[in-house]
């Protein structure tokens, strides 16, 4: 779960990381009030989960509360990279002497947290050459000790009061990362303004699997409405731009199914992993979602291990009875309780395929025929 900047900054503030004074506002009048509270020129920042807000015009500046109100009026209700802008962060506009980068992330290859820092902040960190990054793996048992932060700061070539502040902030950033089960905690840019060092932006992505440990955090919903609906059923769904709807069981085989459809000249409409061992009802609900998207054809590809073929067949029968399946349906069914599953479908007039190859070829043919 990605947190909005203002929520991430609230967290950072709790952990003692300096952030600019300001607050979130949802109306032009409120933005003016927030600017008045700050009492200085302000930045007005769209709160959307998209990068490159500045370039896209989602960040404005105002010297007076009246100007802040006008800028807020111009932003609220519009869209940025497809995300509706309904909240703004109004905070002190910083005088920028220098922009740094601090981040803590999970390194899957090393199986440990990884600190990434650079004196080239304020730009997309992926575009900063490797030699200008200072990185350090962290043993999760001991965490990021103060000496390690000082080491990083020295390698960055920073010293004096600024260096000391950066080291302190890095230690606190690791604390946020650790305490909040984050996949990413990032300050970009960390601004040096005179003798102050302040987090001008904040990103905090919290591991969804650890959400149960962070019930005090507000839920930030991502993805399309359809993706959320299927996620509520407890299955994994990604919307794609094609016209052949797909359900398979297991992430790998679902991806492979999409690949094969594409290789045969078809266009998959979605990724839907029914998972291992899903029972009849969630599968039926998921297929209903597929039907509701009005694809040209549907492919169900099941290699039953813990998933039982008869459960899959019964789910399909239920969907037929409840809402109907008006588009062509191709089913590939092998594995646990295969004979029962195939028989249930035969009684419904559906011939199940045994091979993934033939089923994929057939669904592409049917989708093209329906065009």
């Amino acid at each position: 779960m990605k947190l909005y900047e203002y929520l991430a900054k609230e967290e950072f503030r709790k952990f003692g990381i300096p952030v600019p004074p300001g607050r979130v506002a949802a109306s032009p009048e409120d933005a003016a009030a927030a600017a008045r509270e700050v009492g200085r020129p302000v930045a007005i920042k769209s709160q959307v989960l998209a990068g490159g807000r500045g370039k896209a015009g989602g960040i404005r500046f105002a010297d007076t509360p009246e100007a802040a109100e006008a800028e807020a009026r111009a932003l609220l209700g519009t869209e940025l990279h497809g995300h509706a802008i309904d909240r703004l962060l109004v905070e002190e506009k910083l005088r920028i002497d220098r922009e740094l980068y601090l981040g803590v992330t999970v390194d899957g290859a090393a199986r440990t947290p990884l600190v990434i820092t650079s004196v080239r902040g304020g730009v997309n960190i992926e575009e900063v050459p490797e030699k200008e990054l200072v990185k350090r793996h962290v043993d999760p048992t001991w965490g990021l000790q103060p000496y390690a932060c000082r080491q990083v700061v020295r390698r960055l070539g920073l010293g004096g009061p600024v260096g000391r502040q950066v080291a302190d902030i890095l230690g606190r950033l690791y604390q946020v990362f650790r305490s909040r089960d984050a996949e990413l905690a990032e300050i970009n840019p960390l601004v040096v303004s005179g003798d102050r060092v302040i987090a001008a932006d904040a990103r905090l992505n919290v591991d969804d699997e650890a959400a149960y440990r962070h019930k005090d955090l507000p839920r930030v919903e991502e993805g399309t409405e359809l993706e959320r609906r299927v996620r509520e059923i407890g299955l994994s769904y990604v919307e794609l731009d094609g016209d052949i709807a797909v359900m398979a069981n297991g992430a790998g085989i679902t991806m492979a199914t999409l690949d094969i459809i594409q290789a045969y000249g078809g266009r998959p409409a979605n990724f839907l992993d029914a998972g291992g061992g899903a029972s009849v009802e969630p599968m039926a609900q998921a297929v209903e979602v597929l039907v509701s998207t009005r694809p040209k054809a549907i492919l169900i590809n099941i290699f039953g291990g813990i998933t039982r073929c008869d459960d899959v067949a019964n789910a399909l029968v239920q969907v037929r009875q409840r809402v109907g399946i008006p588009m062509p349906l191709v089913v590939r069914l092998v594995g646990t309780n295969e004979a029962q599953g195939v028989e249930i479908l035969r009684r419904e007039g559906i011939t199940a395929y045994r091979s993934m190859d033939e089923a994929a070829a057939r669904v592409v043919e049917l989708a093209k025929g329906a065009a």
Partner: protein
Amino acid sequence: MAILVDEKTRVVVQGITGHQGAFHARQMLDYGTRVVAGVTPGKGGEEVHGVPVYETVEEAVEKHGANASAIFVPAPFARDAAFEAIDAGLRVVVIITEHIPVHDAMQVMAFGRSRGATIVGPNTFGVISPGKSKLGIMPNPIYRPGPVGIVARSGTLSYEIAANLSGAGLGQSTVVGMGGDRVVGLGFVDVLKQLERDEETRAVVLVGEIGGTAEEEAAEFIKGMTKPVVAYLAGKSAPPGKRMGHAGAIIERGRGTFESKVKALTAGGARVAGFPWEVPDLVREALGQAAG
């Protein structure tokens, strides 16, 4: 031979009294796995399928000489269960549980490393040495003993490929599921090293997918292997920035792409199959060449 598990492996099932644990303990017993004990805190003294249940892993080790574990406990308790298994000195710890927080996984891996334990998973279908033993949730009927080692990130896709191989008369030495999470214990290179040493294994099938750099690292190792490697990768059609089911299956910032992995594996000397059903022919071809 085979790697990681065989007919001598003495298994404790952690979470054996739960729905999943009980079901798969039954399947493992049916397959011939020596399930010597179960552990569920609060249920010590009970029996599941005739297997004694204990309060602690330590007791299962003392009384039955357990040396490996299959963990089925729910995610919020899985870190504790894994620490307990490692602390009790178990050699192989297979974490079947999915949805484990990534910070928990990192701590488990650090502890496992400090104790020299082999951790498989989390979010894995487990490990099977066909005809000998299995620790996991894979379907029993699809495997045959034979010369092909399989290492995979994904369960069902590896079932598909194992079934294809068995159907073509190509049995398997050991099949290892690494798990679909971002942080897992055993990686491709660890498994490849062991398969390269294993006398029974004559060819290796690697089943990978988009995301991360595990396949690229494997490709480097494959360059120095004497045994042929056939690879199949899923996710060619996946759009960047979307998490395709597995936490680790995401193309981020231009990294972890299908093309990069195919390129690396091909350069490493692996034969990369375009479709899953092409794997058996490529294996046969590779074995023929290796023999000739």
